[in-house]
């Protein structure tokens, strides 16, 4: 029993003790629990971190290898392009060298050919010389022509004057003004007067139309085809007395060249004739019918009907050629029927 009382007294404390023990255990348990949770969480954390680190490392490793691979590829490509560019530069340079040489050659030979230019300029100077010479000759020729014309004109004038002043010729008794006795030899005018024929009062013959100066034929390049001058008369001719025609005219007429007509001049069997005959024969051969071309179909309807000879004459046989042979016209007779005159 004592134990029970002790137990009972302890009992009242038991609940407290129990409660206190529980509380302390509870508190310990909380602390222990918290500690256990901490430890566990730390450990889990470590584990996860280790795992993550592992994953990280693996990922890095993969990426590392992959990046290395890519860069090497890229590097290889870069090298290829660099090599290619180097090659192209080299080729370009060589091509430039070739083109440089070629262009220089081409330009020097064809475009700005120095020697050709030199030759051309020499040719130009030669040509210029030739042209200058020719022009000089032409100018000189013109000058000479002009001078000649002037001289001839002067001569003509002088001669005409001499002919007009023929009366100034000196005679046996009286010395003319150009033949003064104190001179050693007569004046040239005197000689001219002696040579010239005195100018008569007869009208000058009209100028022959054939003696035009070539300058007056600006459109004609050649003079006319018939003889322009008169034929020369025979030497030592005595002019016959009487109303004869001028000998030159007669000779001209006598020796006039033959001017045959075209028909005479063309030969009998000229190729032209033969060709024409040939053509006619062809036509005759090819001709299918003799109807002329009728433009409209009703063309022949307006044709006048032509009578035949028998129908157009009077009825009966023709008497001419059988009954009588002469043509008579009685209304023209002067005398009667039986007269000879008709």
């Amino acid at each position, binding site marked *: 029993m004592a134990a029970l009382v002790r137990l009972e007294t302890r009992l009242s404390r038991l609940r407290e003790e129990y409660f206190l023990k529980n509380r302390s255990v509870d508190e310990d348990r909380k602390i222990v629990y918290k500690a256990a949770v901490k430890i566990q969480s730390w450990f889990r954390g470590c584990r996860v971190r280790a795992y993550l680190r592992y994953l990280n490392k693996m990922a890095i490793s993969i990426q590392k290898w992959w990046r290395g691979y890519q860069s090497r590829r890229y590097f290889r490509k870069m090298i290829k392009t660099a090599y290619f560019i180097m090659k192209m530069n080299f080729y370009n340079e060589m091509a430039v060298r070739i083109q440089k040489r070629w262009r220089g050659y081409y330009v020097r030979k064809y475009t700005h050919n120095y020697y050709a*230019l030199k030759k*051309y*300029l020499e040719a*130009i*100077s030669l*040509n*210029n*010389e*030739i*042209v*200058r010479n020719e*022009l*000089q000759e*032409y*100018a000189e020729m*013109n*000058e000479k022509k*002009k001078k000649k014309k002037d001289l001839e004109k002067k001569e003509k004038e002088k001669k005409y004057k001499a002919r007009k002043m023929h009366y100034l010729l000196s005679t046996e008794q009286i010395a003319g003004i150009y033949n003064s006795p104190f001179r050693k030899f007569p004046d040239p005018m005197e000689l001219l007067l002696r040579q010239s024929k005195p100018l008569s009062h007869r009208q000058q013959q009209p100028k022959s139309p054939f003696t035009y100066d070539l*300058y007056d*034929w*600006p*459109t004609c390049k050649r003079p006319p085809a018939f003889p322009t001058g008169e034929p020369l008369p025979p030497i030592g001719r005595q002019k016959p007395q009487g109303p004869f025609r001028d000998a030159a005219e007669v000779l001209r007429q006598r020796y006039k060249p033959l001017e045959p007509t075209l028909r005479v001049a063309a030969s009998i069997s000229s190729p032209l004739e033969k060709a024409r005959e040939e053509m006619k024969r062809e036509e005759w051969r090819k001709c299918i019918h003799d109807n002329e071309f009728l433009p409209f179909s009703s063309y022949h309807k307006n044709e006048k009907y032509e009578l035949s000879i028998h129908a157009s004459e009077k009825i009966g046989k023709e008497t001419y050629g059988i009954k009588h042979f002469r043509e008579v016209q009685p209304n023209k007779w002067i005398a009667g029927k039986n007269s000879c005159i008709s």
Partner: protein
Amino acid sequence: MSQRQVLQVFEQYQRARTHFVQAVAELSARPQNIGTLRDAGVISLLRPLLLDVVPTIQQTAALALGRLAYFNDDLAEAVVKEDILPQLVCSLSEQNRFYKKAAAFVLRAVGKHSPQLAQAIVECGALEALVICLEDFDPGVKEGAAWALGYIARHNSELSQAVVDAGAVPLLVLCIQEPEIALKRIAASTLSDISKHSPELAQTVVDAGAIAYLAQMILNPDAKLKCQVLSALSQIAKHSVDLAELVVEAEIFPVVLTCMKDSDEYVKKNGATLIREIAKHSPELSQFIVNAGGVAAVIDCIGSCKGTVRLPGIMMLGYVAAHSENLSMAVIVSKGIPPLCTCLLEEHEDHIKAAAAWALGQIGRHTPEHARAVAETNVLGTLLSMYMDIRSSEDLQLKAKRALKNILQKCTYLPALEPLLHDAPPNIMKHIVGQFSKVLPHDSKARRLFVTSGGLKKVQEIKAEPGSLLQEYINTINNCYPEEVVRYYSPGYSEMLLERVENYQPVL
């Protein structure tokens, strides 16, 4: 009164009229009487005589009117105002050839003075009548009609177009083929007047086939005819390349070159004009002319003439040289530069000198070779003096300056450049100094010559703004020489030396 007496009165009157009209015609042949005649009212008196019954009085009255109108444009206007023209135009178609000639002469005399009078003639319908006259048999009538048409067409392109529209051109081409020289002359001159105004008119003339006949007539010995023919061809060729090529295709070369040796001055001038108008269009045409020896002929022509006759030849050389450097070298090789230099020196007219300066500039501007050829003749000094001369016209100064600039920019011939150093104004100076600065760094002999001739001294004396092109050139030149030499020649060196002498402490 008997019949005879009545008739006598009429005879007297007719005699009086004839006498009056003949006297007026003779008086009007002398220019000094024209004023008195005009004051006496001669036009209104002559007008009814144009309608006279007697043909001789009509013709003489028309002749007198023509002579009066020819000398004086007041009288020509009076002729127009008094309505004489319609009467003349009517009678042009009806009357005989003497009257036609006189009427055509009156129309020509009125039409020559001014475009308004010519317009009045066109408005009264004279062109058709004149064109009908061109078909007449008598060459004198054709000549009168062609001359009148020529004077009308001369003034401006509308009147020319009116003449062409009246159908004159084919008839004129027919007139050219006629044998009479005077008619050919007038027809050629009329064609020249028609085609000078515009390319379309020239094309009309070409379409009528005129070029072939004109080209044949160059061979004719008559000088005045050649003048007109060459003038006609040059008026046709001047408008465009195609027309010029058509003219060339008519095979005028080398015949035209003989015209350059003709004794008549105006034939030479017109021949040179024709060649110039052809050469100015394109390098191919110029090349063709050079190959035919045209340059030599023109150069000889320039050498032998004096005065305005030379001008087309000078311009032709300029045009040829302007096209390309090969052609310019061809001109130089044909000895073209000496005549141009003589032209510059001898001529008095400014426009000829300007043309010669321009031509020299065109020759020398291509390459250093060309510039050297021009500079060797010592013409640069003349050009410079012409540019500096205040009496030269503006045109001459401008052309001389341009020519000088063009030549200097390519000139490397130093002996010719040195004399210019002394006189040139600043804008020319920079070109000269520039050329020196290009040549001196490479040529030691030239450097020596430059110093001994006093050029370096002159260069030092030039004042230039720092930083300008001129200063750069001067610096380049100074860098070609050692320091002492440059200092020796710089201005004020002797003073500087003397100052140094003054400030020197003698070493005892």
